[in-house]
């Protein structure tokens, strides 16, 4: 995998290239827009990492000039407000990271960007010892199959697909119950406690968490 790092701070650019290199991602460096154009003219890149405030222009303006078949672009900028991020993504950037970002995350995002076309979610969802097969709707803990109903399976799938993130209860209710289905206030919590019981029976405690007044999230201390 080869990326083009467009960054005017040479020290940062070289460090990024070195640390990404250690993860098998080769990089070329451009210190500004003019250099970036030169690189783009002669090289083939799988992804572009773009700083916004460049000495010879703004990264966003440059992004607009790129052809539609350009490689995916990850903006890495010091501009951290929501407006900046929304503008960056609206201009066509594929992802946005705020400086200072850690190399591990930059590498993960770059890999995800390159994977994105035709990307498939992993066939089996897994967090800690819990696995779920979205096709067969079967949940297992350490290979031990859990007996769960349809709603529990739906609930578990959404949480596993968003592992480590809080899923708002409105979203879960929207997915689990149709508009005509009357949702009692405790319906969701009942589904969650049934699931928790199944996990506890299989020896997996403390993995499905309620954030009272907000929603639910899935994860172990280690997986988060």
């Amino acid at each position: 995998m080869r990326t083009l790092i467009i960054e005017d701070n040479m020290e940062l650019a070289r460090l990024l290239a070195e640390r990404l290199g250690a993860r098998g991602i080769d990089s070329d460096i451009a210190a500004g827009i003019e250099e970036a154009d030169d690189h783009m003219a002669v090289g083939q890149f799988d992804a572009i990492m773009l700083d916004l405030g460049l000495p010879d222009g703004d990264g966003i303006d440059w992004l607009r000039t790129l052809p539609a078949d350009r490689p995916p672009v990850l903006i890495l900028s010091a501009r951290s407000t929501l407006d900046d991020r929304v503008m960056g993504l609206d201009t066509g950037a594929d992802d946005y990271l705020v400086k200072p970002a850690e190399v591990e995350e930059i590498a993960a995002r770059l890999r995800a960007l390159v994977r994105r076309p035709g990307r498939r979610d992993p066939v089996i969802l897994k967090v800690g010892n819990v696995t779920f097969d979205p096709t067969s709707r079967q949940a297992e803990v350490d290979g031990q199959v859990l007996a769960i109903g349809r709603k529990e399976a739906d609930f578990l799938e959404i949480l596993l697909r968003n592992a480590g993130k809080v899923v708002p209860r409105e979203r879960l209710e929207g997915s689990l119950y149709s508009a005509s289905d009357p949702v009692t206030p405790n319906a969701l919590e009942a589904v969650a406690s049934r699931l928790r019981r199944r996990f506890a029976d299989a020896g997996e405690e403390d993995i499905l968490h309620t954030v009272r007044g907000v929603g639910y999230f899935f994860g172990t201390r280690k997986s988060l």
Partner: protein
Amino acid sequence: MKSIAGKLLFGLVVSGIIGGIVLGVLVTYQYGLLGRNPPPLNRTILEITEHVIVPVGVFLFLFGTGALLVVRRVEAQLKATARDVCQAAQELRSYQTPGDALPTELKPLTDAVNVLTERLEAHARRQEAFAADAAHELKTPLAVLAVSLDRLPTDEAAPLRAQVRALSEMVDQLLLLARSNSPDLVQRRSLIEPGALARRVVAELAPAAFQAGRSLSVEEDAAKPFHGLEEAVAASLRTLVVNALRAAPDGAEVVVKAGPGASLTVIDGGTGLASDELERLKARGIRADRAPGGAAGLGLAIADRIAEAHGGELVTCLPECAGLSLHFPEVHAA
């Protein structure tokens, strides 16, 4: 007597007395009231009444009434302008007194105040631009640092990474504070629902809270929306929640309460902060948990300043509960 009407009245009485004396002297001289053959007493009184008391009385009455009417009118204009200024202050925007809103005699004052406001606005803009530049300049070395840490073994890098994150958060908060103080806040602000904001911030922090052995929840109680820079208010609330998670005993639940009214309260189940202690922390910007070393913490001071820039304040909720509250001015229906 400090009011203009009072001074006018005083002036009228003085000029009435002086005028009366002068007229009296003239009348006395003209009619020989004190001469060798003075007219009878009733004629003297009639002359003085006709030529002194009546003219001076009529003059004083008409002039006084006219002057009072003018003063009342100017007062009404001043009050209307003051209302506009208060409204602007409430909405945290700058105000320029229009040239024709007040009498020309007041122009030197309104011009001078307008210049002052303009300069303050320019200063606030410069400060925001400076903070934005400073934040940008600080973030680049932080980015270099974050990437350099990748060379270290994971266990050695972890505490340093936490420091870089804390520094970076502080830089973001300073930038948001500068934005909250910006004269352009009115254009940038939006209507904030305390409940939605609380859920957003809690959703962000809940997994980390769980890892630290605490839990987070949101309660809503008659919350009312308010105007503000959502990201700045979110940063304030985040600071309070992070502080509360640190202060809360192991296994405790930190509750973020939206409402009543335009307020957000973070209850940590710890010992709480007395209001004089909170004032001291707000003023000096030191860490609320008094933990030695660790991440530099301007957090609470910045959270307070952000609230203040929104016309609100950060207060302790002792003795009712152990925690801190952000209060904002409610939006009144137009």
